[in-house]
């Protein structure tokens, strides 16, 4: 497990490459978990309420952006990564922003200053379509069906957060009771997808 930044370094920092290489060579799954990861952000806050919203959660979003834009997924194409405990409502927002900026830099800005060309090789959604990026969902995420439409229902995992104080008890039951998600998708979220991500075949 790592957090969404390495302190005040982003996750595409060249110093981290040997770590990714070791993880990829070993074919291990890598988890990027929410946490108070970045002192520069942490120290903007003196109240735990907004800190819990931004300083705790945002590094996960930063982790995806830096790994993708910094070419980590190109360098280690088999790296299997999950982004945990930030819900899944951010996925649309970040992928749309990545898409917009990737094309702006690649088609417009690069013609002004050539060194602004994106480092990453392919469009953001093309990395998602490869199937190596996973996201955990909160069972109450209202846009979960739409996120599954975007990233694929095989890329969403269930996490209980047990025994932390802000978790929802009986989350599995609550997810099963949702009417806007198919039974097939529920089975994937609750069993198939985590088994595949963690390589727990026959668990």
């Amino acid at each position, binding site marked *: *497990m*790592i*957090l969404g930044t*390495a*302190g005040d370094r982003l996750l595409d920092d060249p*110093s*981290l490459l*040997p*770590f990714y290489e*070791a993880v990829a*060579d*070993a074919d*291990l*799954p890598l*988890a990027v*978990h*929410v*946490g*108070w*990861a*970045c*002192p520069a952000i*942490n*120290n903007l*806050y*003196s*109240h*735990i309420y907004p*800190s*819990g919203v931004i*300083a*705790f959660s945002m590094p996960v979003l930063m982790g995806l952006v830096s790994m993708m834009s910094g070419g980590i997924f190109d360098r280690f194409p088999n790296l299997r990564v*999950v982004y*945990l*405990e930030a819900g899944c409502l951010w996925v649309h927002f970040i992928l749309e922003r990545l898409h917009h900026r990737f094309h702006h830099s690649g088609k417009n800005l690069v013609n002004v200053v050539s060194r602004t060309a994106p480092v990453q090789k392919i469009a953001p959604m093309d990395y998602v379509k490869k199937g190596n990026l996973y996201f*955990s969902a909160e069972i109450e995420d209202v846009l979960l069906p739409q996120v599954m439409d975007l990233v694929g229902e095989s890329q969403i*995992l*269930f*996490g*209980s*957060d*047990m*025994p*932390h*104080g802000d978790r929802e*008890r*009986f989350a*599995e*039951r609550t997810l099963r009771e949702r009417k806007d998600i198919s039974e097939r998708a529920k*089975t994937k979220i*609750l*069993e198939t*997808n*985590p088994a595949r*991500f*963690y*390589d*727990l075949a*026959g*668990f």
Partner: protein
Amino acid sequence: MRVIDADGHVEENPITFSDKYFAPEFRAQRPQVVAGNEEGLAYWMIDEQLFPRRLGKGCNNLGTPVSYQGIPVRHARRKPDTLGSMELTNLKERLQIMDEENIWLQVLYPTLFLAYPLSCNPAYVSAMCDAYNRWLGDVLSEQERLKWVGVANLDDIPGAATRLTSALCATRTTAGSAMCSRSRSGSNGSVSLTSMISPQR
């Protein structure tokens, strides 16, 4: 269907950093649980810094520690979970609440390591990571329903990469890995990173 919880947690406790798991050279400065000024509050003291720190600039809200001298702290008393379940001192109690919530298998993540930095000394933090990884490798070695995720110190990349590589070369018999627990071709279908989970001598 057997439900897999991809993101459960464990609450670290003094056993995590006990002599059995913590490197000898850092034992004099091992993380300690200390009492707060108000009844029912407790903190980890690491390098003379307190965790959690819910007030003031740079605050955080870690759930650990959940006990002080065996007594639940204030926030832990509000939870349905027992100390044994949260701290994994009683695996049956963790499995019981998993059964109540219809979770067959749980992948466990840390709590203390959700804050950065725990110390400005990378070697010391690596020792803390090692102790955590050894501790879970030890306490979870005899069962199949609780897997665990290892923690890596990104301020010690050579150390993290070396530990991962050497651990994967070790005997594969029980659950646990440097970056994530996983299933494989070991005798019980899971992988072990022996060099990381062997207790300290």
